């Protein structure tokens, strides 16, 4: 196994671990805001690591660039949808766990 493949495998495994942690977070966290945190932050990092791992194995620079573009667009859309969902939840009166909602 070449060092490049080892590095790629390490990235992929770390990405998978982050995805797993994010999924557990979505299932286990108490309220919608915490779950959003788990979903967006951790999934972005997970996807980023997976993309980095795959880019190391890709045959050409063009493929690697395309992979990073996928990550970039997921980053953009998840950052915005996270804020939009959180705002919608706040407007509908979802109370943060352990907190109080301002009247």
């Amino acid at each position: 196994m070449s060092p490049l493949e080892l590095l790629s495998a390490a990235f992929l495994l770390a990405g998978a671990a982050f995805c797993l942690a994010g999924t557990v977070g979505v299932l286990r966290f108490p309220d919608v805001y915490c779950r959003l945190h788990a979903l967006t932050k951790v999934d972005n990092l997970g996807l980023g690591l997976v993309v980095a791992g795959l880019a190391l194995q890709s045959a050409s620079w063009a493929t690697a660039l395309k992979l990073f573009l996928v990550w970039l667009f997921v980053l953009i859309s998840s950052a915005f949808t996270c804020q939009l969902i959180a705002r919608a939840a706040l407007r509908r009166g979802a109370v943060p766990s352990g907190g109080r909602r301002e009247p």
Partner: protein
Amino acid sequence: MTDVLLDGCLALCLPLLAWLVLRTESLSQAVVLFVAFGLLSALGWARLDAPDIALVEAAVGTGLTGALLMHTLSWTEETPPDVRARARRRPWALLATAALTLLLGWAVLALPADSPGLGPEVEARREDSGVKHPVTAVLLNFRGYDTLLEIAVLLVAALGARAVNPRSERASSDAAKDPLTGELFRMMTPALLLVAGYLVWVGDHGPGGAFQAGAILAGGGVVAILTSRMGTPRMSSLRVRWALLTGPLLFIGVGVAPLLSGRRLLELPEKLAGTLIFIVEMALTVTIAMVLLMFFPGTRPSRAGRGGER
């Protein structure tokens, strides 16, 4: 090995998701599950070596349909239908669907196992079509008649959608000032336009074409409508009518022109076929995007307004 794992996962998850969509208690959950189902079935099409269908499924079946369903949710009350009680009340419907499933299954199994289909014939004449991608060659040249009629069906569907739901309000102006959606729109629009243009261009020699590009343009339009940067397209606007008609009119023109020089309907001259197909696809992209946007009913009216109308 990994292929088998992936295919096995898809084969397990798709029926499970379909079952969950039917079973779930809440409407919003059903919509989310349906979108997930669409994404996975797009993956399934990609695994079946049908990237053209996978693209359409992802763009229309999941993206636009998902947006439409979500939007419809905001118009309705969250009152889930009692699926099981309804099924008990109508056993004949269950029987009919079961019979249809059996019939379709039998039809699939009755197909010859190793038939090459029409693939070799398309491949043999692909040189004459003017494009390099066999799917585009079939859609725009060999079976151009079908595509032309399909566009006519789409136009009628758009008219029907507008007849059922003629209202097209403009959203309140405070939604337009929202920095979040505004920034999203500014960042995504150039990328959407680029992707749509690329898909039309790539249809010549790879998976892509007017339907995929039109669906992606329409997706951008939906975001524009939802963030109030654009009103819902109105049938009364002359520009909307032209956008709806450019594709079919150009296609009919290209199809009828060979008649004047003694050829048959839609028989494109071999030397010009590539250029003509590209022009028609450009026009069809505009039309398809507009037709898909016509299905989108616009922003939700206020509750007071809705109550007053009833």
